[in-house]
């Protein structure tokens, strides 16, 4: 057995006589304080949105809604303009007093 093999064996068996670690002093009071703090300041946990797949789905839904609203608004504007072009011209003419002129031509 060479030196490297010896070291490997030594490392692999190094935990054979291990003693369990003890919790640090004042573990219980510190736990109590953390619990009180955590439970008192309990806020809604949006754990679902922390999952990447749900976050992505939520983002896509938001984008779809925004696009839908944008299209709706664009359509509404176009409809007004297309439906009544004469009214718009009339409004313009009225605004600038172009309906009649004093020279009667």
């Amino acid at each position, binding site marked *: 057995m060479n030196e490297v093999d010896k070291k*490997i064996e030594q*490392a692999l068996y*190094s*935990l*054979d006589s*291990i003693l369990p*670690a003890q*919790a640090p002093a004042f573990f219980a009071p*510190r736990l109590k304080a953390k*619990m009180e703090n955590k439970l008192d300041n309990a806020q809604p946990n949006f754990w679902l949105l922390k999952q990447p797949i749900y976050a992505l789905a939520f983002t896509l839904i938001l984008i779809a809604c925004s696009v839908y609203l944008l299209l709706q608004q664009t359509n509404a504007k176009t409809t007004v303009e297309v439906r009544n072009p004469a009214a718009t011209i009339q409004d313009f003419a009225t605004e600038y007093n172009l309906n009649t002129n004093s020279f009667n031509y």
Partner: protein
Amino acid sequence: MHEDLLIAELKNKSNEAFDFLVRNYENMVFNTVLGIVQNHTDAEDVSQDVFIKIFQSIHNFRGDSKLSTWVYRICITKAIDFVRSKKTRKGFGFFKEIIGLTNTHEPTADVLFYHPGVSLDNKESAAILFKAIKQLPNNQKAAFVLIKTEGLSYNTVAQILEISEKAVEGLMHRAKENLRKTLEEFYTNK
């Protein structure tokens, strides 16, 4: 306090029962978590989270297994989740460092972990072994830590991990093979 009574009292959110649980399980929880997270401060933090989880979800405990088995299961899940999120944070830290948002790098990244329960003559070898344990896949890591540092039987580990005893034997065999490879690499390049 008898286990059934303890569980019933915990479900009633009794403070005395919870204190009893903490007194009796704190070392077990801390030692298990420490074997996986390999840092005293982090282990204390995760152990506290384990007890908070027990307090919050004791009503989900059906009593199919022993309370200790259920507690071990929470310890393993919390510790592995912690290690995973720490790795992710480190990844983001590295990214931030590259784009110049921060210049703080993790100084403890390659620091060896010295378990307080290891005898002085095995201290260095055990630290190298713990470094190799870090690189094991999660299920092999869990089985190895439970058997080696907690001294649990294959049967108990099988119940904790909800797999067969044969599967635990397989995990341990593969864990030892992987550790041997990592240690060989380490000692050859040293």
